[in-house]
Structure formats: structure tokens, C-alpha cells
């Protein structure tokens, strides 16, 4: 049973109204009130009036349904609860535990949070950074709630992929990856507690160099990188930038680099990596950058600008958006006074870019 | 000293000393008889004989800003001590209580009362610092080690129990000449001070507080003896300026070129420490007859201190002809008994003469 409010003796009745009236003037004396606040007051004046028993979400939002923590999604027992929900003890009602949008896969109800840390799934392509080197494995920061682990057994060893792992490899584990190194890898499996195990046993994966790193908020929700057809592609940069690789890690870590003829190329031709020549595998774990021309650097920076602009304006980051954004950016640079060297895409220029993209 | 190293030994002496210090010291103290040294003399790894202390070097009034100072070196243990006096008005002593009579005559009663004064009003404030790096174990930024706290406590207690400084030398009086014209509250003070009569009695207005700061510059064992020596030397070196009391403003001041009076120090108590080195390592359960020998190492250095459990410190003063003990501390073992202590008094006397010599230099 709810506790009862002891009201003051005098003129009790009028208070209900009093609230409603004084909403406006109240927000006047308050410094720099904004619409949001006033709306709130109206809201809770209403709340006061009708008491607090309702657990229905407010329909104010109309067409886009946002659910928030503690909100009952359904009392219907035939649904199953998924991520972002819980069932209150002793009831059948499924309640949202995060703020986000509802997703439904036939009988399974789950809530996709507006934003959260990256939650790894098997098969994700991720960009990560080595934070710790252990005896037989590396701990990798992939922006998830726990560090992912990359076993020594799950990487390509120089000198042919079929080579067996030896003690010497364990001893010189740092020669492959050391603290701070960046790499692109795939999530191979998950522990029950959500920890991810990575592998780089494909020539698409491995150590990253010749480029720059951008972190945007990840797949947990809230825009940024989204899972899509291709996470990795090579584009031909404008104004003599040469080929540039873009790696959109599903975990929201982005890598933009000068395109080097990776074994990948060869792989396509020579169907099979067995006769992979030593020279390539030698460079596989090199931490040395090749020489990068200023044009290339400029274009890399421009692409980075595009990505951040997309994020700042809350737009999706995928191949399509990045490519279109890039071309727009080049156009904008052309018209600008400085010319091709104008790569600034912050502030209203960023908004401008976003506007164009959303307009289309 | 070839005999000291047994034939079996396959590595050089320094390594032996590092690896197993205990057997090493044991060897040098109990060398085997060998053809070239038929009667080997037991000696310590530092070449001293068991009862041989390190020479003392004392230099005083080396600090210009302190009222008294001394630098003491005993072997590689070096200690600096500075004494600084500050004036403490009685009004700012919370638990100050005027006493009826400060008997200037030197009887039991007043001396004890004086001791009370020193303690209750904190007129002697020793503080010891083991400088970072003076020995490997002292690291920067750590709270004062147990050793430092222990030594400062021992110095403090000894200062009071030996009463080297008499409270009466620290009292600051307002001469009646000055007191005469001053206001009524002053009279009230006198009323309080001693109930009615005799107007001319001078009034106690403030005390000297002596801050005794001890700094161990380099530490190679036996810090207490050195520290105490430094304190004593510094106090004997202390000169306090003559203070004039301005009762109108109720403040004490001493002009820059005021004459300085030497602080009177009573007696010359000297500390003498030794450590006991056992043949069997401490606590090991093999107790046969043969390996129960022990040596008393006078003025131990750092390496010896780490190997010895039991220590004895005796503070003696032979100033008045006969030897008087001012303090005795023996702990950490059961070897030193009555006889050894009796005997040790003699050793301490010898040490006293050495230090006395160094002081008077």
C-alpha cells in the first residue's frame, strides 16, 4: 500500500491547479529555461493529477518507440525475454532493462540499447589493440566489456601457415605482437561470460601499419559502425592519393591506411596460400611503416574527417556512407578557396556534409 | 688471513660474505689453527677485535643558523645534530599552571618539578631523520621507519631521565622593574602566582623550547650511540641569546647583537652499544654443546647488526669520579646475564673515556 501525503492544513484543493498555473511563471524566474523543461512540468502536472499507478509507456513519442529501464514491454506470457530485458520476480511481464528500441525475432523480445559497449559475436571483424602479452596469448582491447584474447595458436606464423608452433615461438611471442600494436582479426568463439577469442589465421587479418586509427562508438548501438556487407574495402583516392584501405571494425574501431599489395592479392590469383613466398610472410609482423606520399596522407586524413563527421552528426558509418561522404568531401574541397588541401570537416562544414548526405 | 678461508671454499671471500654472511663472520671470529698462524686472533669481518669500538670524530658549531650544532662520525655512521631555541610565552601553553615557588635552590623536590615542566610543556623536542639513501633500506617517500621512531623515543626519554638540561635554564622572567608600571591584570597575575605579599617577585612569562633535530647522514650500524653523542655535543655547544620582555605588548624579543649565554649541561652521559653474535643461527633447533659459543661485538656495524639478535646499550657517566649508570637497555636474547652486564660496565667506562676525549678536543 502506498504512503499517504500529509498535506498542509490550508487550501489543499487549490494545489492541483496551482501547479498547472504556475508552470509557466515558474520557468520564467528559473534562469534560461528551455522547452524540454517546460514540457516536463506539464508532464508531471499530469502525472500528479492521475496518480502514479500507470506502468504504460507514454505515447508522446508516437511512431518511434523508445523503451526505457523499468518499462513493461508486455505481460503476455507467450513471449521470451532476450537481451536488454528481464522478468520481474514472480510475474510474467517482460521489462526493459536498458533504454533503446525493441527488436523481435519471432517469439524472442529484446531491446537494442541506444548505446553500449561492443558485444562480440562470432564472425565479427574487429580492429583491436594489444594491451597485454602473456605466455601463450595476447590480451586485446576491442572496446568490449572484457579484453579479448588472441592465442598464439590462432595466428599465422611466418614461414608458411602450416608450420607447427614451437617453444621458440612462445619465447619470442613479442616479435609477432607487442603491447600497443594494432591488428585486425575475427571473433572465433565466445566464453560463456561473454569474453571473445580472436584469430588472425587468414591473410586478410594481422598486424596493421601504414595508416591511422579512429575510434567511434561501436555496435552496441548509438550509430557509428554498423554490420554490413563489407567491412573492408580499397578505394582509389582522389587527387593522386593512390589506393587506400578502409577497415571498419564492427567494434567501432576504424583503420584507414595506404594500400599495400597484401598476400591477399596473391591469394586470389594463386588459389591457396601454401606456396606463399617468404618475403611476404617476413613483412607480416613488421612494425615499420613504408614510405607514404603526402597526397596519400592527405586523403587518409580526409577519410578520417568524413568518418568523424558522420559520427558527430549521428549518422551510420558503413561503406556506402563513407564512400558518398568522401566524394562529397572532395567536391567541397574543390569549391573551397584552399583547394584540395582543405580537409577540415568539423563544425558546420561537417553538418553541411551530413545535410547533403541525408538529403540524398 | 688465508686461514679464514677454508680450503673447500671455491669462490672468493666477498662472494662468500654475500652468500652466507653468518658462517663467514663465524669463520673470521673462530679461525682454525693452521701452521702459519698457530694462535690466530679472533677478529671481525671489519678487522676490529670483538671489544674494539670505532674511533669517534666530533666537530661542533658547524651550523650557522642553529643555536648549537654538532657533527659526529663513528666509522661510516655520520650524524648531524642541530639545536634551535624558540620562545614560548606561557599564555600559549594550554595546560600551563603557575606554580607557587620556583625554588632556585637545587633540591630533590624542585628538580623533579622541573622535570615535570620539561615534559608537560614539551620544552625539549627531539626529532630524528634517517636520510634517504643513508643506507639501502631507507627509501624516499615512506613514513618514518620503526627504527627512526624507536631512536627518537629513546633519545627523548634519555634527555629527560638524565636531566642534562635543567628547566630553570629555560625559564624567561620579566624583571619586576618592567612589571611595575604595567596594568592591573598584571597584578592579578601576581595574585595568582603566589597568594598575596612580596610585590618584587619577578614573573615567569615564557620558556625556551629547544628543538633538537638529528639527521643521520650515513648509516653503518649503531645509530643510537652516534645520535646521542651528537645531541650531547650539540647541547654543550648551545648558546641562547638573552631575552628582554616587553610587558606592554606582552612579547619577548632578543636584539640581533644581544649577548649569548652558554646553556648549562649537567654531566656527560655516554651511550655504549654492543650486539651478541651466536654460533648457531637464531632459532635453529640443533642445540649441542659444541656450537653454543657466542661473541659480544662492541659498536656493531650494519652487516653485524643484521646477524645479531640480542643487543645491549648502557649509558654511563663517570663525570663525578665514580661510574654511574644512567640507562640500561638489553633485549632480544638470553645470553647477556648478570655477569656479562657487570663486566660490560667496564667496557662502557673505557668507551666513555674515548668519547670524553673526542668531546673535549
Amino acid at each position, binding site marked *: *500500500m502506498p*504512503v499517504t501525503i500529509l498535506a498542509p492544513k490550508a487550501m489543499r484543493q487549490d494545489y492541483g491547479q496551482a501547479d498547472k498555473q504556475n508552470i509557466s511563471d515558474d520557468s520564467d524566474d528559473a534562469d534560461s529555461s528551455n522547452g524540454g523543461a517546460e514540457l516536463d512540468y506539464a508532464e508531471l502536472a499530469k502525472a500528479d493529477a492521475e496518480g502514479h499507478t500507470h506502468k504504460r509507456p507514454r505515447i508522446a513519442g508516437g511512431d518511434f518507440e523508445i523503451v526505457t529501464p523499468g518499462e513493461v514491454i508486455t505481460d503476455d506470457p507467450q513471449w521470451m525475454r532476450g537481451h536488454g530485458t528481464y522478468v520481474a*520476480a514472480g510475474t510474467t511481464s517482460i521489462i526493459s532493462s536498458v533504454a533503446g528500441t525493441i527488436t523481435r525475432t519471432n517469439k524472442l523480445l529484446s531491446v537494442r540499447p541506444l548505446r553500449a559497449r561492443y558485444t562480440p559475436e562470432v564472425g565479427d571483424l574487429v580492429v583491436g589493440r594489444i594491451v597485454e602479452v602473456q605466455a601463450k596469448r595476447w590480451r586485446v582491447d576491442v572496446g568490449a566489456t572484457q579484453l579479448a584474447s588472441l592465442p598464439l595458436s590462432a595466428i599465422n606464423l611466418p614461414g608458411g601457415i602450416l608450420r607447427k608452433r614451437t617453444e621458440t615461438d612462445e619465447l619470442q611471442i613479442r616479435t609477432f605482437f607487442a603491447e600497443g600494436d594494432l591488428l585486425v582479426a575475427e571473433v572465433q568463439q565466445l566464453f560463456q561470460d561473454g569474453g571473445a577469442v580472436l584469430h588472425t589465421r587468414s591473410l586478410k587479418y594481422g598486424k596493421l601499419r601504414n595508416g591511422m586509427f579512429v575510434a567511434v562508438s561501436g555496435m552496441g548501438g548509438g550509430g557509428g559502425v554498423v554490420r554490413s556487407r563489407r567491412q573492408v574495402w580499397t578505394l582509389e583516392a582522389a587527387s593522386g592519393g593512390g589506393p587506400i584501405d578502409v577497415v571498419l571494425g564492427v567494434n567501432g574501431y576504424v583503420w584507414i591506411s595506404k594500400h599495400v599489395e597484401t598476400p591477399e592479392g596473391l591469394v586470389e590469383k594463386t588459389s591457396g596460400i601454401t606456396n606463399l613466398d617468404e618475403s611476404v610472410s617476413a613483412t607480416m609482423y613488421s612494425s615499420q611503416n613504408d614510405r607514404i606520399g603526402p597526397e596519400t596522407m592527405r586523403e587518409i586524413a580526409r577519410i578520417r574527417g568524413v568518418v568523424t563527421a558522420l559520427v558527430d552528426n549521428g549518422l551510420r558509418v558503413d561503406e556506402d556512407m563513407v564512400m558518398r561522404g568522401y566524394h562529397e568531401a572532395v567536391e567541397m574541397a574543390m569549391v573551397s578557396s584552399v583547394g584540395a588541401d582543405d580537409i577540415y570537416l568539423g563544425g558546420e562544414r561537417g553538418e553541411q556534409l551530413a545535410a547533403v548526405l541525408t538529403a540524398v | 688471513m688465508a686461514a679464514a678461508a677454508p680450503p673447500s671454499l671455491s669462490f672468493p671471500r666477498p662472494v662468500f660474505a654475500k652468500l652466507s654472511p653468518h658462517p663467514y663472520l663465524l669463520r673470521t671470529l673462530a679461525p682454525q689453527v693452521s701452521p702459519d698462524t698457530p694462535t690466530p686472533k679472533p677478529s671481525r669481518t671489519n678487522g676490529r677485535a670483538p671489544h674494539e669500538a670505532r674511533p669517534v670524530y666530533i666537530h661542533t658549531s658547524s651550523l650557522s643558523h642553529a643555536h648549537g650544532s654538532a657533527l659526529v662520525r663513528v666509522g661510516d655512521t655520520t650524524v648531524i645534530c642541530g639545536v634551535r631555541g624558540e620562545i614560548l610565552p606561557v*599564555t*600559549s601553553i*594550554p*595546560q*600551563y*599552571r*603557575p606554580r607557587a615557588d620556583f625554588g632556585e635552590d637545587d633540591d630533590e623536590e624542585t628538580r623533579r618539578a622541573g622535570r615535570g615542566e620539561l615534559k608537560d610543556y614539551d620544552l625539549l623536542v627531539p626529532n630524528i631523520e634517517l636520510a634517504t639513501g643513508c643506507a639501502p633500506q631507507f627509501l624516499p617517500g615512506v613514513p618514518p621507519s620503526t627504527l627512526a621512531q624507536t631512536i627518537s623515543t629513546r633519545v627523548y626519554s634519555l634527555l629527560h631521565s638524565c636531566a642534562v638540561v635543567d628547566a630553570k635554564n629555560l625559564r624567561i622572567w620579566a624583571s619586576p622593574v618592567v612589571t611595575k608600571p604595567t596594568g592591573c*591584570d598584571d597584578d*592579578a*597575575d601576581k*595574585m*595568582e602566582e603566589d597568594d598575596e605579599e612580596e610585590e618584587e617577585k619577578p614573573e615567569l612569562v615564557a620558556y625556551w623550547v629547544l628543538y633538537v633535530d638529528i639527521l643521520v647522514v650515513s648509516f653503518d650500524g649503531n645509530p643510537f650511540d652516534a645520535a646521542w653523542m651528537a645531541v650531547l655535543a650539540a647541547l654543550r655547544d648551545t648558546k641562547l641569546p638573552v631575552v628582554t620582555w616587553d610587558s606592554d605588548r606582552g612579547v619577548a624579543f632578543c636584539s640581533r647583537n644581544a649577548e649569548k649565554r652558554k646553556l648549562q649541561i649537567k654531566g656527560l652521559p655516554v651511550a655504549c652499544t654492543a650486539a651478541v653474535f651466536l654460533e648457531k643461527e637464531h632459532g635453529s633447533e640443533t642445540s649441542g654443546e659444541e656450537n653454543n659459543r657466542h661473541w659480544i661485538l662492541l659498536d656493531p656495524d650494519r652487516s653485524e647488526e643484521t646477524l645479531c639478535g640480542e643487543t645491549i646499550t648502557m649509558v654511563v657517566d663517570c663525570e663525578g669520579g665514580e661510574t654511574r649508570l644512567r640507562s640500561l637497555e638489553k633485549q632480544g636474547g638470553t645470553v647477556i646475564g648478570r655477569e656479562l652486564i657487570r663486566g660490560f660496565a667496564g667496557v662502557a667506562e673505557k668507551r666513555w673515556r674515548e668519547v670524553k676525549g673526542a668531546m673535549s678536543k
Partner: protein
Amino acid sequence: MPREIEPSLNEKQFVLQALQEKFRLDGRQFDQYRPLELTFGDQYGVADVAFGKTKILAKASAEVTVPYADRPLDGVFAIATELSPMASPAFEVNRPTETEVLLSRLLEKTVRRSGALDTESLCLVAGQKCWSIRVDVHVLSHDGNLIDTACFAVVAALRHFRKPDTSVEGGILTVYTPAEREPVPLSWLHSPFCVTWSFYGDRGEIAVLDATWTEEQIRVASCTISLNRHGEICQISKLGGTPVEAVALLQCTSIALTKAKDFSVFLDKKLAEDTKKRNIGGFMAELRSENDR
């Protein structure tokens, strides 16, 4: 330092199950305290309090000092609660744990901020000299519910305490030794007591008083209510944990009030007994000091 180990799964499950069946391990009612013992020391201001196997000794002491600059007319009053390894090896000297911080805050709020002791009466010479009253809380044995025990001990010690008599003439302060003048009690305004509830269950529906150490380790929330016998709340703190129905908290408060009244009665009784006992001793003391003069 070794950490306190949590109770085994078996214990956790069982204690909870038992509580749901309305049983406590030691067969107590939910709102029943363990037997309370209070003994005063031979000296003034020493109180030894025990709730079951929890034992706390509080000692009050007084000293003349200089008052704080910002409040020249007030005395100094401090409660020191340092948990020593005697209570549990998990406590390290001068490294405060959360337990210690919360305990000292609670005593601070309950005894000091509620104005149980009239600090202005401690002023001797305005801005120059005042009494500094200090209570040292020594936890001898820790079997749960430190807060209530400590609070009771502190209040008992302070009410039993006598500080030296003083006189001020012409700005000169005289503090009389016990031999010269009988010490005088503190000016005490009201006696607050702490009552701590522990909550169990998913919704904190089970409420228990005076939890033992095992029970404390398993509880999901706790709420300490401090009151005096006049029905004045001095402090309430439910610092997080599983939420509890507001109504339940109100009920807890009213029960707490009755407990506080019981404590207050008990303490008054004990103090009365003690003074009776002392009157003889006090007289003897007088004689002795006479002889020595």
C-alpha cells in the same frame, strides 16, 4: 593483509531459508537483541559494552587545548574509531576500511551533530583555551552490529565521564587535580542510540535487528536509525543496497524508538548503580588525599 572470506554457499542459502521460515540461527526473534552487558571501569569515562560476542570498550578523556580559530567559543569534541586487528586480522592499522569510515560517520552524526554534548560548555578562555573531549572506541571482538554497540559504548562512557574542575581568575586558568577537587561531569543534553536493521530477500522484505557477523555478511541492505527517548530522530542512514518498502521503514522506525527507550532506561539504571557504588569509594579517596597532604 588477508581478506575476510565470505560465508560458504551452504551457509548463505541456509541462513536465508531459515529466515524465510522465521528462524534465526541462535533462536532469537527478528526484533530481539542479544543480551546486553555494560560494565564501567574503575576510572571515570570507561565503558565496556557487549552485545553477545561483540565487545567494545570506549574510553573518554579530557585535555586543555587551544580552540579552533573558526569557532573560538566551542570546545573540541572528537570520537576516534580505529579498528585494530584485534577485531579481525582483515583490519590494518591506519588504513581505514569502508566499515571504519561508515562507523565513524554514523557516530559523528548520531552523537556529535545531534548536539548530545554541549560543546560551548567546554570553552574555558574564549579563543584561547578550551577542553578537548575525546572518546576512543576500541573494538575488542567483532561478531556483527558494531554500530549499535559502539554508539551505546560512546554514550555510556561520556555520561560516566568526569573532567577535572577548573577556575579562571583574571584570565589565568587553573586546572585542579583530582586530589584537589572532585572532577565534574560533562554538561550532557540528550542520549541518542543507534538501532540497525538488516534486510533480506529479493525485495528486502525480511527485517532483522542486531545481526551477527554471519547474518551481516549475507544481508542485502541495512538501515541505521538513531533516536533518543524523547522520540527525536538524530540520524537515519540506509546507504543503498536492495530497496525496501517505505512503509516497512516507517514500521522499523517505530520499533527502533521502543528499543532506544529500553536502552536509555537500562543505561540510567546502570549509571545510578555505579554512582551508588562510588560514593563510598569517593569518600575513601577524599580521606587518602587528606592523609597525603
